[in-house]
């Protein structure tokens, strides 16, 4: 059953860390700080994919993490949208997929991605812009 645009104001986001350095994750923390403060916009970080509307994936997805990412995607209830973040998440960045033995490829090879936020790491403004873009897709 398809429900038309149920989420208009307050998306709950689950952050899945799939390998990579922690640069993007620190930038996500900066988003929750007093300067940008995403919670005033109703955007909330949740601890389990079961509550989430949006899945935010950082990192190039190593082979080891691939089954967990698939499981997290399956656990997120419909309707759901996915954001791939950082140069690694969007296209593997410096971990070039043809030459690296341990990388399962960028995020969009494994699960469908709606919005990509490039940058190494992206600015908090860019993250907010990406989240607002994905909210228009519900």
């Amino acid at each position, binding site marked *: 059953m398809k429900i038309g645009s149920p989420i208009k104001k307050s998306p709950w986001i689950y952050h899945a860390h799939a390998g990579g350095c922690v640069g993007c994750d620190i930038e996500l923390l900066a988003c929750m700080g007093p300067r*940008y403060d995403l919670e005033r916009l109703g955007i909330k970080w949740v601890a389990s994919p079961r509550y989430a509307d949006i899945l935010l994936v950082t990192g190039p997805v190593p082979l080891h993490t691939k089954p967990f990412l698939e499981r997290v995607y399956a656990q997120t209830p419909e309707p759901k949208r996915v954001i791939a973040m950082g140069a690694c998440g969007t296209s593997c960045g*410096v971990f070039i997929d043809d030459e690296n033995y341990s990388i399962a490829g960028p995020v969009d090879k494994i699960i469908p991605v709606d*919005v990509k936020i*490039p*940058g190494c790491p992206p600015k908090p*403004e*860019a993250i*907010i*812009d990406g989240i*607002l873009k994905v909210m228009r897709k519900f």
Partner: protein
Amino acid sequence: MNVISKLKAYGELISNFFRKPVTVKEGYGFTADIFRWLPRRDADKCTGCGACNERCSSGATSLTDSGTERLVSIDGLRCIFCGRCADVCPERALDLVIDPENRKKMMEKDPTAMVSLSQGSEEKKPTTDTTLKLQRCTICGEIMPCTEIYLEVVRERVLRNLQPDTAAIIDKDMEKYLRACISCRRKYSLEWDTHPRKFI
């Protein structure tokens, strides 16, 4: 002592009502002068030499020859804004600094400003593309793996540091062989008297 500390606490509480918020409007904000963005390429300066492609740390740049044209591009999704391409470019055609007009818009909180390179699933990939014409061999007409502008730059660079009389001789030779393909150079270099053994 107890009363004073209580008064201080109330004073702090009341002053908080009149304080301005620390948070900024979402989607906009301050960008530093040296803020790095997707490299912008000056299409007039670029010679298509491929130095940026050699030096790229994340494999974002690419040179693709198709027919008579060479496409030099930087993939915005893969670029990590390290700036090595701009450092190594001999013509200084690349610039990582954000587009000044866009930056001004961002600082003035103009809603038309481009805040990020974020890409939806059906939107176009953020790239920097330049298309250049490839040189054709003047004798056999075969396409050579270098661009027209690049050969001019090579000629200038070779003649720049030479003595005028030597430069005149080499310039005369280069007129013939620079725009010929490698197999034609091999064939005709003795006929044209451009073979390097004449200097020995």
